């Protein structure tokens, strides 16, 4: 007799009631997990990967309904179980950790108490020893001073610490299956790795099965044994990691793998599957840094020169009570978001600005875009010192059109009441002083062609456009006034990988065609590398390392850069 699989989902279909009628979120999903195995479920947003997990533990929201098939856990049918049966299983046999750990913890209950709640609920502790056990759990997830942290509230802990607490809660009752739903989204890259390593170590020790839900193929490759790829509610491919990466069977998988930038991938590789084999590669941009060309560039003046830039914010109010008129001590005069950085960008060059959140990279880019005033320092752009103008007056300067910016979130950066045409036309009207409606329309249509936005979409409002289309509108708006420098502030971080690939290629192509310089701000070295010849790595407002992109990525000189590079999970065939 063959033993039934530990977890098996068969022909599972789930429907959701929405305003536009019933939508099928899962369509005949099949999967199984063995004891102690880690299964990665990978897919882009809306692929149904989370719904699968929620259905398994019976946490579908009210609008969702199982339309067919079944989910079994250790011989028990989960899809037909009563709420009280499921409640007994949750936390004890199956537990779950979520993205955005700070939001996932009760904000007004000490974290230790929250661990206790689970222990007491599943009778893993008595009132007498619950606290001791909770503290022990905190210790196991490597939280220092667990006795003190027991009384902490989530808002007093960092995101990474909160995720550790979540892990402690999830593992408190020694469950046999852990579902991790995008467990590192929203955490800093270096924290991501530590968190994932912790999850791997703890679950291995306990021989637990893990379902790792992620949009990041690299992450699944690094931590899963087997991967399921989902697309639009269906499982398109199931394979072990090595097979999946070396011999992907399904076109969608191939596309995803190609689109995920790794340390060695080229820009053309990203869409190689859709556009055919990338044998006719364009010359690598590294050539821009050829000695010959470098000499030529040096003859030309720098487009942008940033000298000793500092941005200081007044110190946050001190903890505890103080007199309203008392001033903060002069000793700690303020928090330096940007702490004396200098760099240059040559004409036609692309520079990457890389670092974790809070390192000052976005502040730097806002100052260069003249949306923010620096505390001190100079910005020499096109031979002129821009810091002589105040940020709120810069809008009226002729240089305004020469520095433009593409924003992080394409949705948030478009006015919901403006059509795509209005949005692209706005800078033309204000900066180019074009008033004739026909001329504006002509110009906008030209821009749309340039960024590959079909002209019939120009009359649409942002909510009627897809993420990729919105990104194109944002780019068209920025390049409409012929800037010399385009600042890209994490332009692809809100996009799915396949869209990211296309947008990156578009940006590269525009650069060549229009001869702009880029300042590309990102947390992801692998992405920056694709577009930029040179990178600057920032940490705590200072420049840690700079150099040629490939050089820095493959051969980091500084410890911090090395950690940053190592933290980005990716598929490494040699490690298997």
């Amino acid at each position: 007799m063959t033993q039934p699989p530990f977890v098996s989902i068969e022909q599972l279909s789930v429907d959701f009631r929405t305003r536009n009628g019933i939508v099928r979120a899962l369509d005949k999903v099949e999967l199984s997990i063995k004891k102690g195995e880690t299964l990665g479920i990978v897919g882009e947003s809306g692929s149904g990967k989370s719904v699968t997990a929620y259905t398994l533990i019976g946490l579908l929201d009210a609008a969702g309904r199982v339309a067919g098939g079944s989910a079994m856990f250790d011989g028990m049918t989960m899809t037909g179980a009563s709420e009280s049966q499921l409640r007994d299983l949750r936390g004890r046999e199956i537990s779950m950790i979520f993205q955005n750990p700070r939001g996932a913890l009760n904000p007004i209950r000490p974290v230790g108490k929250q661990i206790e709640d689970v222990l007491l609920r599943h009778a893993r502790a008595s009132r007498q020893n619950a606290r001791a056990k909770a503290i022990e759990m905190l210790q196991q997830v490597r939280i220092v001073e667990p006795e003190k942290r027991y009384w902490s509230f989530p808002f007093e802990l960092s995101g990474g610490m909160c995720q550790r607490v979540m892990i402690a809660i999830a593992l408190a009752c020694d469950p046999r299956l852990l579902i991790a739903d995008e467990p590192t989204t929203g955490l800093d890259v270096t924290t991501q790795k530590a968190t994932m390593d912790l999850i791997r170590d703890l679950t291995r020790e306990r021989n637990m099965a893990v379902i790792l839900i992620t949009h990041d193929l690299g992450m699944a490759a690094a931590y899963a044994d087997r991967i399921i790829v989902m697309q639009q509610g269906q499982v398109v491919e199931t394979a072990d990691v090595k097979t999946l990466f070396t011999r992907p069977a399904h076109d969608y998988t191939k596309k995803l793998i190609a689109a995920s930038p790794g340390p060695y991938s080229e820009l053309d590789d990203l869409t190689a599957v859709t556009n055919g084999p990338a044998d006719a590669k364009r010359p690598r941009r590294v050539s821009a840094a050829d000695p010959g060309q470098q000499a030529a560039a040096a003859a030309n003046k720098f487009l942008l020169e940033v000298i000793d830039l500092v941005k200081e914010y007044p110190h946050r109010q001190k903890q505890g009570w103080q007199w309203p008129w008392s001033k903060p001590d002069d000793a700690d005069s303020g928090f330096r978001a940007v702490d004396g950085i200098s760099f240059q960008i040559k004409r036609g060059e692309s520079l990457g600005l890389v670092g974790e959140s809070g390192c000052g990279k976005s502040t730097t880019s806002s100052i260069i875009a003249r949306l923010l005033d620096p505390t001190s320092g100079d910005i020499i752009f096109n031979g002129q010192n821009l810091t002589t103008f105040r940020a709120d007056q810069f809008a009226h300067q002729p240089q305004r059109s020469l520095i433009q910016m593409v924003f992080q979130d394409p949705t948030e950066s478009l006015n919901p009441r403006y059509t795509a045409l209005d949005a692209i036309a706005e800078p033309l009207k204000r900066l180019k002083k074009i008033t004739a409606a026909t001329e504006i329309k002509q110009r906008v249509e030209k821009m749309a062609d340039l960024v590959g936005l079909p002209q019939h979409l120009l009359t649409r409002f942002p909510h009627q456009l897809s993420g990729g289309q919105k990104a194109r509108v944002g780019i068209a708006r920025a390049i409409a006034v012929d800037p010399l420098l385009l600042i890209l502030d994490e332009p692809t971080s809100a996009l799915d990988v396949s869209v990211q690939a296309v947008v990156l290629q578009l940006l590269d192509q525009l650069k060549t065609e229009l001869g702009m310089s880029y300042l590309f701000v990102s947390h992801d070295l692998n992405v920056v590398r694709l577009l930029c010849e040179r990178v600057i790595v920032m940490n705590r407002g200072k420049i840690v390392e700079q150099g040629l992109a490939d050089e820095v990525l493959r051969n980091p000189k500084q410890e911090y850069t090395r950690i940053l590079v190592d933290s980005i999970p990716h598929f490494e065939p040699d490690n298997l």
Partner: protein
Amino acid sequence: MKRFLNHFFYVMSENPVTVFAFSLFILIILTALFGPWLAPYDPLATQAANALQPPSLQHWFGTDHLGRDVFSRVIVATRLDLGIALSAVALSFFIGSALGSAAGFWGGWTDRIIGRLSDTIMAFPLFVLAMGIVSALGNSVENIIYATAIINLPFYARVARAETNVRRNAGYVMAARLSGSSDLRILATQVFPNCLPPMMVQISLNMGWAILNAAGLSFIGLGVRPPDAEWGIMVAEGATYIVSGEWWLALFPGAALMLAVFCFNLIGDGLRDLVDPLRRT
């Protein structure tokens, strides 16, 4: 516009209550506009012989202690009640939203001064403050309007401030800066239009409250003077007769008042759905 109408009809078909509220709203507006021509009797004509008659075919809502036709008085009063509320809300909307969006957009000192001002008004129980203002400025209809406007001011200022504040660093505002727009232009063309929908909801919910406030003030004898027809004062006049069983004097004006307020509240809820289906509570 067409898109808006489609959405409007969609929300309407979803929610029959809103349809009812909008029809009622139109009815109230028509009554306010054409009240004097609709009323069957002169609302001020006394007829001592006919005093305190219960509702009948001649006098649908009965007659009051001076023999005046209650139905006519209720109809005619619509204009005055609505007029007071509308002027008060309009005043506080214009001043409040201007102050509030300035505070939310520029922050800093502007924000602190305006915030302190609205906090101070809010530190009073508002109806009580209105009583104080009317007693200080003098007992007249205009002063009822000013008092109601002042006590509503902080609500508009707060909504406008909050809505502007969340948008002032939105990507599209940054983009407008990069497009060479000045602060004032950004506030007027990018930020404020996006704040309007939530403000509309506030206006509608506030209208009901403003009507109640004005009626409450005249109920305790402020503002409108006796022979004039106004719902609050009619209820006050009828109150004396409740204990002896002449219920119609107070019921009909009170019911009219209630219906009007109810209508504005329903529209407020409906608008909320129209504006933002997600915020539906």
